[in-house]
């Protein structure tokens, strides 16, 4: 009888130890995700979002975020808070340790710059198209401020928004203004320029710019997905 009790007690101890190790690993992995992976992902987006490759000499061109992208990023962050992707009262609170608050503010800051650079990567650099794209982004984000959202819907909506802008900027516009196309394509480009009195002019970059932008946007969406899962885990703990 006593032997059986001892065995049960040993089993319980082992199970408790395994649980403790699992909890320890979980908190370590979550810390790695929150304080290493997320800021690194968002900073990489901030780096690549403004990077272009010159069409002639294949030189790097670093394009800092225009002012409008900062405004768009603010609206997007507000949308993240409204959609529940960022639980602001859980992220930054007087009851939390200072280091945790600082880390969360840092993640928010990196997310802000990544958002600005994600917009920068799909906005035409100058001319009427720059303002048209900016206006449509502004309109969409402003409208979304007043509609009901959850994190999943918001992410889906963002994928569509950035995806459309990417296709327009990196696929449609270069094919319209590219010098390598056929006569019909060139004619369409010249007509578009003529009708708009040259205001639709857009700078041409090497094809690598499109790949960089695609990677940056993919990384940005991946970062948001990771953040959403992380938030769900944190909420389930609460």
């Amino acid at each position: 009888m006593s032997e059986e009790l001892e065995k049960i007690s040993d089993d319980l101890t082992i199970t408790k130890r395994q649980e403790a190790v699992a909890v320890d690993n979980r908190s370590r992995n979550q810390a790695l995700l929150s304080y290493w992976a997320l800021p690194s992902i968002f900073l990489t987006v901030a780096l690549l979002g403004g990077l272009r490759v010159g069409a002639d000499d294949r030189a790097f061109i670093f394009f800092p975020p225009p002012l409008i992208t900062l405004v768009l990023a603010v609206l997007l962050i507000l949308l993240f808070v409204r959609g529940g992707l960022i639980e602001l009262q859980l992220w930054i609170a007087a009851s939390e340790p200072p280091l945790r608050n600082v880390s969360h503010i840092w993640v928010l800051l990196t997310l802000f710059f990544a958002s600005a650079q994600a917009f920068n990567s799909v906005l035409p650099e100058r001319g009427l198209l720059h303002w048209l794209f900016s206006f449509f982004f502004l309109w969409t984000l402003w409208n979304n401020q007043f509609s009901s959202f959850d994190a999943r819907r918001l992410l889906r909506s963002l994928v569509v928004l950035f995806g459309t802008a990417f296709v327009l900027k990196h696929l449609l516009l270069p094919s319209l203004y590219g010098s390598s196309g056929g006569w019909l394509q060139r004619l369409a480009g010249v007509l578009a320029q003529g009708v708009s009195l040259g205001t639709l002019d857009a700078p041409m970059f090497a094809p690598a710019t499109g790949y960089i932008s695609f990677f940056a946007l993919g990384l940005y969406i991946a970062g948001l997905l990771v953040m959403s899962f992380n938030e769900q885990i944190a909420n389930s703990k609460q």
Partner: protein
Amino acid sequence: MRPKVIQILGLVVTAVYALAIVWLYATEPRSFREVATGAQVAAGTYQVDQKKFDAALELFRREQFRAARDQWQSADPAQGDPTTQFYIAYSFYREGWGRVYYDQDLFKRGLEAVNRAIALAPEPLNVPDENLQLHTAAELKTELEQGTERTWGDVNPLKVMRQRK
């Protein structure tokens, strides 16, 4: 590793990464090679390619000014060495100097180079080269500035008697 240590290390490493990104956008390197050179300058390990510098000096003494400048520019791609910039400015001066008139474009580029040399030098720059008549960056700058100024003295026919320094 404890989560708090992970948190602190994460903050430090990502802050360094963010600074590197800001530096990239501020310096705007045009290739990976320029990134590497810029990093060497920032780390304080940047050095001029001495072989190319000597080859350029040889060309300069043979009055092959353009070729010399090309060599000096590849010896100092980051434009971070005051002596090299001084010599580049001197090559602009010598090439732009004429008995009747000075080449304004070359003199202006020389002025830019000598200003870079002055800004880079921690103390007044002095180049003890026996083949030069102007040994300090300040003298060279004055000479280049005088060359870019338009005065009534320019129409003086005796001007043709002057000597290149």
